[in-house]
């Protein structure tokens, strides 16, 4: 036990003591946020960086030439006379200055279909811009065509936007507002975190094993302790590094949330006050909208609050440990069978494929978190650590959780036992490339 503790401490310090680890741990949350911001940034640069494109409009109906308004990306010019008769010639003549030609047919009122011509592929934003603007205008015109005074307003008022609020009946009879989106997000994040951790820390274990084997320190160490102690010490030490890193991230998250929350509170307070004042004035419609936004905000908050965090956290830690143990010992066992990292791929590929299957199964279970696929994948120990994360926010029956955790830990212990048998032979074998056949022999004997 004393030796195991020594090895755990050494393995832990060997990673945690590294500058690169400290820097990465502190930077990672910000990097993730940065990666999340990239699509927004790209969108921003797309809009601001490019020039406004000219789109010609041929209006055969004579009604809608001006219906399509310009935006920051597109400028619409009506074509008339000879140009309208032969837009192709006009397009060619413009030599790229005209991005596309929109042709509005004469009977667009009865058959609402327009055509866009271009030598280029039409951007999605252009298509949606045209259809939205034309749809609105045509709808308004059709309503006006009925000749009923005030009908536009009536239609506006009559248009209903159904808001769905889901309430879960708990077994104890109480009601609880839930948010599918929030549950989904939490499940996916947990699944992804598990996947990332197990894979990257598993690889770390394998590299550690290979390194010890190649620089031959292993022979000195196993003349002092049992190979099993060395393997477990490494697995536990590295696992603790993972939990440390996770804990640091949670702390960072909480700090950011608190700082962000108080900043948001500071900025929100005066504006809601102002909104309340504005509401008393004529034309306070905007304020109503803001209040409605605040309502949605509080809905999100109750959604976040509605999740059973204690259960999720306990389950997450259990599945994390089980899944990590399972995969880490596989990596350790296989790592012991090779002399250098580059030879390891024949063994790691199947393991990585298992992990990837688990991730996809998890994402597949989003559609139906209580369906048969979700059920079976959360029982199979190789996929359950990831899949169960996705299901967790949707109240998984207790017996399923218990059974799945039991299967996971049973398998993890069995795999660790197998890996130890591979390991104790593998670490002392050099010079030859070993395959699954050799490994099978090592397990046997």
């Amino acid at each position, binding site marked *: 036990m004393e030796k195991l503790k020594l*090895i755990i401490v*050494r393995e832990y310090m*060997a990673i945690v003591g590294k500058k690169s680890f400290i820097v990465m741990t502190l930077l990672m949350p910000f990097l993730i946020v940065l990666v999340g911001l990239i699509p927004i940034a790209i969108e921003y640069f797309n809009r601001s960086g490019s020039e406004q494109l000219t789109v010609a409009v041929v209006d055969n109906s004579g009604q809608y030439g001006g219906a399509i308004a310009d935006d920051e990306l597109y400028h619409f010019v009506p074509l008339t006379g000879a140009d309208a008769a032969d837009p192709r010639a006009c397009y060619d003549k413009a030599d790229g200055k005209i991005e596309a030609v929109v042709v509005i047919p004469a009977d667009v009122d009865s058959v609402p279909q327009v055509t866009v011509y271009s030598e280029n592929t039409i951007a999605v934003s252009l298509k949606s811009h045209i259809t939205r603007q034309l749809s609105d205008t045509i709808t308004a015109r059709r309503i006006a065509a009925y000749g009923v005074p005030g009908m536009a307003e009536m239609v506006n008022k009559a248009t209903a936007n159904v808001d769905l609020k889901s309430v879960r009946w708990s077994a104890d009879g109480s009601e609880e507002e839930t948010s599918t989106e929030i549950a989904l997000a939490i499940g996916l994040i947990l699944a992804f975190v598990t996947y990332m951790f197990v894979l990257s820390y598993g690889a770390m274990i394998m590299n550690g094993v290979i390194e010890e084997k190649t620089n031959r*320190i292993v*022979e*000195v160490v196993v*003349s*002092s302790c*049992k190979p099993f102690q060395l393997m477990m010490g490494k697995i536990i030490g590295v696992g603790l590094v993972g939990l440390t890193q996770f804990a640091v991230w949670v702390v960072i998250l909480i700090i950011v949330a608190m700082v962000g929350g108080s900043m948001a509170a500071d900025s929100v307070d005066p504006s809601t006050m102002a909104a309340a004042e504005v509401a008393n004035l004529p034309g306070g419609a905007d304020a109503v909208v803001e209040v409605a936004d605040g309502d949605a905000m509080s809905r999100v908050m109750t959604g976040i609050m509605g999740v059973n965090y204690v259960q999720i956290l306990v389950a997450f830690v259990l599945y994390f440990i089980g899944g990590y143990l399972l995969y880490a010992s596989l990596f350790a066992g296989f790592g012991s069978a090779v002399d250098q990292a580059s030879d390891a791929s024949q063994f790691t590929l199947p393991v990585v494929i298992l992990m990837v299957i688990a991730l996809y199964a998890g994402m597949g279970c989003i559609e139906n978190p209580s369906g048969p696929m979700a059920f079976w994948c959360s029982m199979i120990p190789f996929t359950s650590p990831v899949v169960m994360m996705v299901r967790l926010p949707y109240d998984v029956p207790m017996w399923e959780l218990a059974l799945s955790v039991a299967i996971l830990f049973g398998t993890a212990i069995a795999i660790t036992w197998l890996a130890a048998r591979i390991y104790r032979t593998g670490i002392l074998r050099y010079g030859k490339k070993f395959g699954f056949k050799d490994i099978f022999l090592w397990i046997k004997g």
Partner: protein
Amino acid sequence: MGFIEVNDVVKRYSGHTALDHVSLNVPQGSIYGLLGPNGAGKTSLIRIINQITDPDEGTVSIGGRPMRRDDVARIGYLPEERGLYKKMNVGDEIVYLARLKGMSKGDAIMAMLDWLERFDLSEWRDKKVEALSKGMQQKVQFIATVIHRPELLIFDEPFSGFDPVNADQLKAEILRLRDQGSTILFSTHNMESVEAICEEISLINHSKVVLQGRVDDIRRNHKKNVIAVSVDRGQRVEADPSLFTVLPAEAGRRDTLVRLNEGVTVREAIACLNERYTLTGFTEVLPSMHEIFVETVKQEV
């Protein structure tokens, strides 16, 4: 009774037998040589004594009783392929390996400081192992091997990688450890060092012990009735068909090697030579361990 007794040990790996009924007996406080060509089974035997692997048959005892798991604390092992954690500090690494052998943290630190001082490595204590030269790394590994004052030291090719100056220092340290009471098992190809420091040896070839005993006895038993004679300048020793033949002159030898015929005593031969030439000296030539090694291993083939 020996300190380490290996009794009839057999070790099989899938497909071949690494050790075939090997027995040996290492006396307390001696330096014992374990010789043999590559792949003969030396490393397998060392791993069994170290309890890294278990024998399929046979037993190993230490100090008169069967070896137990916790006896690894009484053994220090310097493997042929040296290895240290490259990213660890020299001091931390030595202390870690010492504590794995069961030393307390305080003792390990004290001993580490002492040994670094002895090997002139004190200023390297806080440096990473990878920053050290190969020779210095070897010294660090040596320290890690002996720091817990093991009763049995197993050195696998200890001198490989050391320059002559450091090799001498190492040899002195090994002898000092022996004088302090350690028993030393010494695996090597270097036959000169065997003659210089080993008292007894076992030669393993093809998984079996093919030669065993005290170095002096072995050399005497392998003597080929050769004597080296020196005669006065200008004289040349000629063969005598009834008594001896003259071996071809060896480069660098000023005396003449004479092999006695079967049944001829040294006394008879010298009497004859003394009569014919002005004899200035003669010694009996014992074969070197190198010759015996090569001869024995070749015979086996």
